[in-house]
């Protein structure tokens, strides 16, 4: 009953985990809140144990209102290196490669990862899987 109430209140019309796993954070890998005065790199590799994935940056639960109208990267449009690794940078400062710019608004930010048709091992225990890291690089 509690799970159903929580899902109704916060995860309206979500899919079951066999269809999609939704992961989100408002902190970097050291546990600090995402700060738009800093540059972050999100580092991952390959298919992330799923058929398709995307990563979206939000402010106040809405897309980032940046000048590029760039809100996300996905399995199909991220640039990979020759080893299948990819890096997405979050920053106000222009970056080479995969880059989601922060906007000039204020408010809490979060990063969401969606995994569509995750592998059975990911459905069974997502915490044990190798997931992308969010690493703070430099701050202004």
């Amino acid at each position, binding site marked *: *009953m*509690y799970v*159903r*109430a929580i*899902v*109704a*209140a916060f995860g*309206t*019309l*979500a*899919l*079951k985990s066999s*269809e999609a796993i939704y992961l*989100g954070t408002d902190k970097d890998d050291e546990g600090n809140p995402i700060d738009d005065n800093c540059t972050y790199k999100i580092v991952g590799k390959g298919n992330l144990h799923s*058929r*398709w994935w*995307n990563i*979206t940056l*939000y402010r106040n*639960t*809405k*897309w980032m*209102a940046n000048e590029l*109208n*760039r*809100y*996300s990267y*996905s*399995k*199909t*449009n991220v640039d990979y290196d020759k080893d299948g690794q990819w890096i997405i940078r979050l920053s106000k400062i222009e970056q080479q490669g995969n880059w989601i710019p922060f906007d000039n608004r204020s408010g809490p930010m979060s990063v*969401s990862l*969606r995994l*569509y*048709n995750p592998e059975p091992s990911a459905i069974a225990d997502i915490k044990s899987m190798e997931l992308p890291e969010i690493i703070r690089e430099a701050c202004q």
Partner: protein
Amino acid sequence: MKSWKKTLIIIIVLAALFHVITIAALPYVVSGMVQNRLLEKGKLEKNVFYHGAIRQFEDVVVPGDNPDTITSRLVYDIRKAPLLVKLRIPDNASYWSFSLYANNLDNFYTLNDMDAKSKYRTSTVNLVIIKSKDAYKKKPDEVVVQSPSATGIGIIRIVVQDRYSPEVREELANLRKIQMASKCELVKLPDLKSPLF
């Protein structure tokens, strides 16, 4: 002293009851709000698909919306008759699915493109939503799904491979064509009053 204890027990029991009822009712309340929002406060019809285009920043109203999908929404009402949903499934999608949510927002059914093709070996699936425990004589090409409630929500989700690509117009045109080919209609039931029946 006894009266004080009795009052306290009554208050605790009432508080516990209120808590349980609130938690149990929350999904139904949220579902009503969501259905109303999907029908744009009663301006749109039930049992009709509304096929949404790719959303721009100004269009986003749902918290945590996914920018890389297009969606079709449906508020169904099968109190009078079952609903036939004719689903057109893209051949080379990154992901496509049709999901059904009961009026307590339970996701009781989902069909994705891979399962549709492996189970039914077709790019068109005729799915009939009926009330649970209702009898329905299905046709050979139909898939019958029992809904735990007489009203609910259906959502088609289609992943757009690259909304930022210069070629996205072509991809979207193809996906939109497929998306809009999905339709639904109430099933005409035999007239029980008819002497011919």
